[in-house]
């Protein structure tokens, strides 16, 4: 991590002073404002926090290592896997946005190979962040997770019954 950034985020008082002096400025994409009123202040505080910045920076610095670590892993056998894919990508240029969305769908489909029991789900109208931030999109994600839980529990029950 850069020395200056490391210093600014090393201590809460320094961090708050840096924010006060506007050495650091935090702002949010429009989608964050679509969160329910009870969640918005907490998310705002989280985004503006120094630990979030440190984590964000460290994740970015380690991105290449992370991608190397998940390349060439063994498949997961028959473990149930649900791959959820957003439908569009946001970009100022419509052609680039379309290309990015097409590229992403192809990459998401590649995840299907990690298990013999995988399923693909595109949620209409979603982009990468709206999957979490727009209520109806997040509901669709939550439903997919619930379906996974129900299916795993049903399988476990039938296994116990069979024994």
């Amino acid at each position, binding site marked *: 991590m*850069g020395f*200056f*950034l490391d210093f*600014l985020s090393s201590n809460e008082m320094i961090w708050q002073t840096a924010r006060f002096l506007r*050495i*650091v*400025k*935090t*702002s*949010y*994409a429009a989608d964050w404002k679509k969160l329910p009123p009870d969640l918005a202040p907490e998310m705002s505080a989280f*985004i503006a926090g120094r630990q979030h*910045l440190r*984590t*964000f*920076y*460290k*994740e*970015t*610095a*380690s*991105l*290449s*290592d*992370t*991608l190397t*670590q*998940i*390349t060439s*892993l*063994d498949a*997961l*056998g028959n*473990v*149930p*896997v*649900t*791959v*959820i*894919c957003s439908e569009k990508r946001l970009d100022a240029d419509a052609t*680039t946005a379309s*290309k*990015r969305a097409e*590229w*992403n769908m192809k*990459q*998401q489909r*590649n*995840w299907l190979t990690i*298990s013999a029991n995988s399923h693909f789900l595109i949620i209409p109208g979603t982009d*990468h*962040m709206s999957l*979490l931030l727009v209520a109806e999109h997040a509901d669709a*994600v939550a439903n*997919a*997770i619930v379906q*996974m*839980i129900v*299916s*795993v529990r049903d399988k476990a029950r039938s296994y116990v019954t069979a024994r």
Partner: protein
Amino acid sequence: VDAPMDAANVSQQLYALLEAANEKGPYILVGHSLGGAYMRLFASQHREDVAGLVLVDATPPCYLTTYTQAGLPPPDDRKWASFSTFFRRTR
């Protein structure tokens, strides 16, 4: 924890947290974006404890390499550059 935040470390930390909290498997793992990559590694490392995996628009292994092959600018480069240079969070 002042360790590199790569998938191996995140997976290790998550497992340690689950152990410390006495949360026994099997687990259903859910990861969005880069979190999906972390969960993919966790699932491989602790396969016997994993009952299911949900990847939500997960970052694929070829994220940094195939983007340019598809004729697209490298992802988020400008955002990272802006972030590190001006210490501004724009998303």
